[in-house]
């Protein structure tokens, strides 16, 4: 059975190629411009969809939290309050931009867009459906985590540029936390890489055609899930921005659109982590009947819902306790997972 979405996608692709070719013929543009223009059109289409989905995720989070709180959450703006996020973005755009007196203005301005971009770039590596991806390379998992490693540095810069005490404390905490989460994250990933025999996202997804890696190595999946919540700096691991203690940590001195960019970054990271988890452990686009991007999107949102659920239930550990969890619980678990995978590999490969 053929996946309807893939068919539609290839049809749209054909149409884009036709229209672009027609325009190029009409205007007499040079041949070498064709490919960049084609990519640009794809990016615009993708980001339109992406933005709508992000708005949906934020709205879903608000509604879900509201339901769990026994309250209604957003209701007024648009149908079911859906446009509240757009109103919030507009509000952030028109707000005054305030600098601390002794801030490093250049860095203060530079960090927010840089951080947002860094958080967003890994999207290009993720395969959303059969044949639907921007970039495929045989070391894409390594590149994915290499880009993610840039985030702690930028967060430290963000706190440092404010030249204020609470943001500095928040930034140091963020640096500490982000460095310690990476070990369990990388170790739990090794199991996946070993089983798939590849560092390519697409090959890893294809290796899960018959059974998900989350079922084959549940310990690894759990460690990866917890470590990626730590990476996101979301509750309950929101130590760097602990509201009650250091206000909002490294973001404290940012206002207006800069704060908006940080807020956006949080959701970019949420999206990217959930997508990585889906691709690495939940079998990507595979599902009953036919492989389709629909399954990917569905699983992605389920993972996000799980992350929201965790966020509203648990208490926040102290920074030192958080690091202790990472080093004394998650890393041994990840190593155990690796051992199990190595020992059981012959039997598991039977299932694959």
């Amino acid at each position: 059975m053929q996946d309807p979405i893939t068919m539609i996608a290839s049809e749209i692709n054909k149409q884009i190629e036709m229209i672009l070719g027609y325009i190029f013929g009409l205007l007499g543009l040079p041949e070498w411009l064709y490919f960049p223009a084609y990519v640009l059109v794809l990016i615009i289409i993708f980001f339109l969809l992406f933005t709508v989905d992000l708005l949906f995720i934020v709205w879903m989070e608000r509604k879900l939290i509201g339901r769990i709180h026994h309250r209604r959450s957003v209701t007024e703006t648009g149908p079911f309050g859906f446009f509240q996020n757009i109103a919030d973005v507009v509000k952030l755009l028109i707000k005054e931009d305030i600098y601390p007196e002794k801030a490093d203005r250049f860095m203060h301005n530079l960090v927010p867009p840089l951080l947002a971009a860094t958080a967003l770039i890994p999207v290009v590596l993720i395969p959303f459906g059969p044949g639907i991806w921007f970039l495929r390379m045989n070391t894409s998992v390594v590149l994915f985590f290499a880009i993610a490693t840039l985030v702690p540095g930028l967060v430290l810069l963000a706190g440092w540029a404010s030249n204020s005490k609470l943001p500095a404390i928040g930034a140091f905490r963020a640096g500490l936390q982000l460095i310690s989460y990476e070990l369990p994250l990388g170790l739990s990933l090794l199991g996946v890489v070993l089983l798939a025999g590849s560092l390519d996202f697409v090959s890893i997804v294809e290796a899960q055609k018959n059974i998900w890696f989350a079922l084959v190595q549940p310990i690894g999946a759990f460690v990866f899930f917890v470590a990626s919540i730590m990476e996101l700096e979301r509750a309950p691991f929101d130590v760097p921005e602990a509201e009650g203690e250091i206000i909002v940590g490294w973001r404290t001195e940012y206002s207006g659109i800069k704060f908006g960019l940080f807020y956006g970054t949080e959701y970019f990271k949420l999206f990217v982590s959930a997508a990585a988890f889906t691709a690495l452990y939940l079998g990507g686009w595979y599902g009953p009947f036919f492989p389709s991007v629909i399954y990917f999107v569905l699983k992605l949102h389920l993972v996000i819902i799980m992350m929201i659920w965790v966020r509203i239930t648990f208490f926040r550990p102290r920074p030192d306790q958080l690091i202790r969890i990472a080093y004394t619980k998650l890393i041994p678990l990840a190593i155990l997972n690796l051992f199990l995978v190595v020992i059981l590999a012959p039997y598991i490969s039977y299932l694959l």
Partner: protein
Amino acid sequence: MRKTDDIVNITREKLVSALGNDVEPVELKWPNYVGFRLLTPRRITDVVKELKKLGYAQVTLITGIDKPQEGVIELVYKFNRMDSLVMAWIYTQIPRDDPKIPSITPICKSANPHELEVYDLMGVIFEGHPDLRHVFLPWDWDLGSPLRKDWDPSLAKEYPWWERTREFYDPFVIPETEADDIYYLSIGPQHPAVHGSFRLILKLRGDTILEAWPDFGWVHRGIEKLAESKNYEQNIVYTDRLCYGSAITWNLTYVLAIEDLLGIEVPERAQWFRAILAEIQRIISHLLWLAAFSGDIGTYHSMFLYPLREREKFLDLLEKACGSRLTYSYIRIGGVGIFKHAEDIPETWFEETKETIKDFRKRLEEYMDITYANETFWMRTKGVGILKGKAAVEAGATGPVLRGAGIKYDIRKVAPYLVYDQVDFEIPTGKNGDAFDRWWVRINEMIQSTHIIEQIIDEMPKQGPLRTKVPLPKLRGKGEGFSRTEDPRGEASIYVVGDGSDKPYRLHIRSPTYANLSLLHYILRHAKLADIAVIIGSLDPCMAEVDR
């Protein structure tokens, strides 16, 4: 437990024999309180030493009363003890022009906040106090002492308020000789950890707090001064504003003091009904605290909103009885409520209260699933902010903070007021005196309160007046009135002095939060920066009460 008479007699004998002619016993209005007049104020430290030997562990209150005609300021020191309702009151007079008296803080830590308060508002200089500074007034205030009778309020306009806003740090100038790895951090006055407006100055090395100084008075309203210009009935409205979390208990404390001063009898049914209201208010206050405390630990989500949801139901109950949600002004002199509606509490209200309680018990189990069954909650609260046993008594803690430290001290048991001697309840106590134990004590107090309410509803007289009529012209009194009650936050008491007019000559409020928050100086030492929110939250601060 020894008989109160014995304790009173022994105290009187010992003190007179120790100090000889410097003290003379005073007959107080209350047989259970023992009073002395100290003729030489310089010997106050000897008196305190003697009283400490006799078991008077805490200073509850130090009141300064300005007497311009006699040219003196009268100081009233009130000491309480943990095992009995006996209190020792020391009266002493110091000249108005040269108000100096030795400080008792070096001997008795719990006197610290009270001495600071008297210095601040009455201008009495306590010689030998380790850190004598303005707490409520600005740090460089030199425009007189507001609680003195001849102080001109228009003087306050002369203070350059707007020029001072940028000089917050000045009283705590960072010494240049300090080591490089030490830094200072100002938490507040606007900060999510501090539940209102107060400031903490922290001296830190890395993540560890070396020293902490609480700094109050950012929204001080001068209620004690204002009360001197309103009559006894009008002042009830001010007591609502003492704490938005528990207005009824403050109404009650004030009204009990005034009834004591004026000698007004209250109908029996009103006494029972007051107790129900006070217990509902205790549950409301603890629920509000539970929500805020959970927020401090780091979930501004489920556990933040669930207690508020239940609190709403109890607020509805009070709204049906009193007609308003937060500031009730419902407990009046002579009983409860306005004359017209005094007997109008319908039978359905009591049934509704019982149902709300039943529902609430189920919800408490739900809270337990989220908090008690959660390892992170234990990690965050166990062993955090420890203040144990004797140290807590020494430092002047009361209420759940003291009970969390393992001391069984509850005014409702020690010195029963209203009908608390006729109902059956337990005092929950902790063991380690950490944040977890304070949480445990408050949760159990809510359970005990539900038992008390149920008992009262079953046992209270079904018929009868809820208020005795006291015509306004009769609300004049001379002498002293005193009350102490168990506020949700600790021991609350009000001391009122009347001069025969319809207005109080001096009204002094003991705020339990003020005494408890002053403990931060001791508790926060060597704590982690990440724990300050939990520690402050576990003390249940209500800043409106501190900045009264």
